[in-house]
């Protein structure tokens, strides 16, 4: 009831503005919810029915074929496993390198701070580009190895700036007290500073994890072996290139049947591949929020 009275307090022209606003918000929400529900429903419908008449609530036309076929495909699981390995390792390397570098950069007395800052910031705006980077990776012998995925993007200047800003917000008393107690730099950093920085560490870790999990470009250009493909590349051949993994549709007799089935498999593939992050993200949302606020502080 309180809401209603709050709303009633507004003068009438404000009410009009508010109603327009709520409608816009409502449309935006529906634009997100409807496709999601449509894809979930469509993934259970018999491929021929789906192509000819779209969604149906005649449950005799419902089937879990698509899920069985996608789940029983080995390449999808190879993709999941690789994506998990790449994302975990990348997150660890990236967080360690970034947190370490942010510490000296956060100290006013650090000699060479200006130099290092310039060195890093230039790379945010200028780079060699695709081919020179590719040729470097190639000449380092890193083509088709995990290192091509893990190393080039491991140090993020942007995340370093965010971590540095966070360190600088930690009260100086803490460091002074530590120095009086005779703590060395290493002890101060690992035992005192890092434990109070867990929110920002969690945020950066999750950014890097989600970023790696969802990207496909580096894997596309650097990895050739099917056994090394991360999930997004497997998804790419199913969803974008219309090439379902061999075995997913090959038992179908006609080309038309194969095409219909391939289309249905896309729906199930989308659901299966997005489910892990969709389920996990609400639990981590508060960390993401924190991180964005930290990033909002001018670097």
């Amino acid at each position, binding site marked *: 009831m309180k809401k209603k009275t709050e*709303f009633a307090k507004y003068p009438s022209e*404000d009410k009009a*503005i*508010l109603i327009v*606003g*709520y409608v*816009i*918000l409502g449309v*935006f*929400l529906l634009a*997100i919810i409807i*496709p*999601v529900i*449509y*894809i979930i429903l469509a993934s259970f419908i018999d491929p021929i029915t*789906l192509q000819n008449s779209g969604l149906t609530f005649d449950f005799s036309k419902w089937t879990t074929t698509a899920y069985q076929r996608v789940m029983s495909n080995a390449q999808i699981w190879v993709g999941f496993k690789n994506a998990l390995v790449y994302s975990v390792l990348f997150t660890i390397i990236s967080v*360690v390198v*970034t947190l*370490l*570098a942010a510490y*000296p950069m956060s100290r006013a*007395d*650090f000699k060479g701070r200006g130099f*290092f800052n310039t*060195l*890093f910031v230039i790379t945010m*705006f*200028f*780079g*060699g*580009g*695709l*081919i*020179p980077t*590719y040729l*470097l990776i190639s000449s380092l012998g890193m083509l088709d190895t995990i290192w091509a995925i893990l*190393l*080039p*993007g491991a140090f993020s200047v942007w995340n370093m700036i965010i971590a540095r800003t966070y360190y600088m917000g930690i009260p100086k008393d803490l460091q002074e007290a530590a120095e009086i107690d005779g703590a060395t*730099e290493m002890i101060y950093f690992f035992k005192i500073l890092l434990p109070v920085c867990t929110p920002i560490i969690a945020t950066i870790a999750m950014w890097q994890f*989600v970023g790696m999990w*969802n*990207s*496909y*470009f580096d894997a596309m250009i650097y990895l050739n072996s099917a056994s090394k493909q991360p999930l*997004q590349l497997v*998804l790419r051949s199913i*969803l*974008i290139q219309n090439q379902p993994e061999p075995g997913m549709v090959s038992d179908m007799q006609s080309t038309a049947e194969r095409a219909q089935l391939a*289309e249905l498999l*896309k729906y199930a593939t*989308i659901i299966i*591949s*997005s489910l892990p*992050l969709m389920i996990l993200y609400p639990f981590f949302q508060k960390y*993401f*929020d924190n991180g*964005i606020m930290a990033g*909002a502080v*001018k670097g």
Partner: protein
Amino acid sequence: MKNISSAAVGGKAGSNKMHNTIVYVKQHWQLYALFMLPAVLLTVVFRYIPMGGIMIAFTEYNPIKGILGSEWIGFQNFTRFLSSPDFLRYLVNTLKLSVYGLLWGFPAPILLAFLLNRILSSKTKQKIQLVLYMPNFISVIVLCGIVRILLSPTGMVNSLLGTDINFMTMPEAFRTIYIASGIWQGAGWASIIYTAALSNASKELKEAAVIDGANIIQQIKAVEWPAIKDTVLIQFIMSVGNIMSVGFEKAYALQTDLNLNTSEIIATYVYKKGLLDGDYGFSTAVGLFNTVINVILLISMNALVKRMNEGKGI
């Protein structure tokens, strides 16, 4: 503090300073050797060495002969690109995609933040935010997969409209698809930063405005806009700085053979020319052209904002 060790040393100011530095580095060697080294190493190897590789752009690059062995051809790769009939199309495609993307995509999260700020119950607000943020966690590939199946001739959009239009093969539909799906995916997430800034807007100020009989428009002008103005400016400069780096990943995943007329942007062209056709020197030149325009845009934008905003830029 820094001068404690040097006070005893004396001598010329220059060598004194030098000496200070040496003493500092000796005392704090861990800061350099342990904390900075990994980041510096990664930066030099994977960022600066490729910058040196830009030389390829001025050669007829031959992978067997290497950079120095390849024939030096000056600006030929650049003139070849600038004089090719496709140059203008790729440039215009890139610019249109990002400028229209900015015009539509930039205000969207700000609008959402204003709307969310007016939701009175914080529980409802949280639920709405949960839905709004969700698309951000979908990968580019899955997003483009969703777009493709929803827009396919037998997909959701066509069955709602009762038509069978193949949107993905229409060059004139590409930009709308690209930008609308971008807003669909990113606007909710991007609104967080503005929501945070709005929640900093002083509650007292707002209450005072309400008591004074300010209507919503006046409240926005006097209280809410000033609270997010700086954030908006910073975000704007950053977006302009990224105008030429429109996402390769998404453009490439939304391309079909038939919509290339509008969907081929410089980034996808660089990839195809370089890695698919093996025309390394030319591809590098095109990429460099892109980067340079980007840097120029960023610098001039920052200068412009500084002038408008009483000397505050980034």
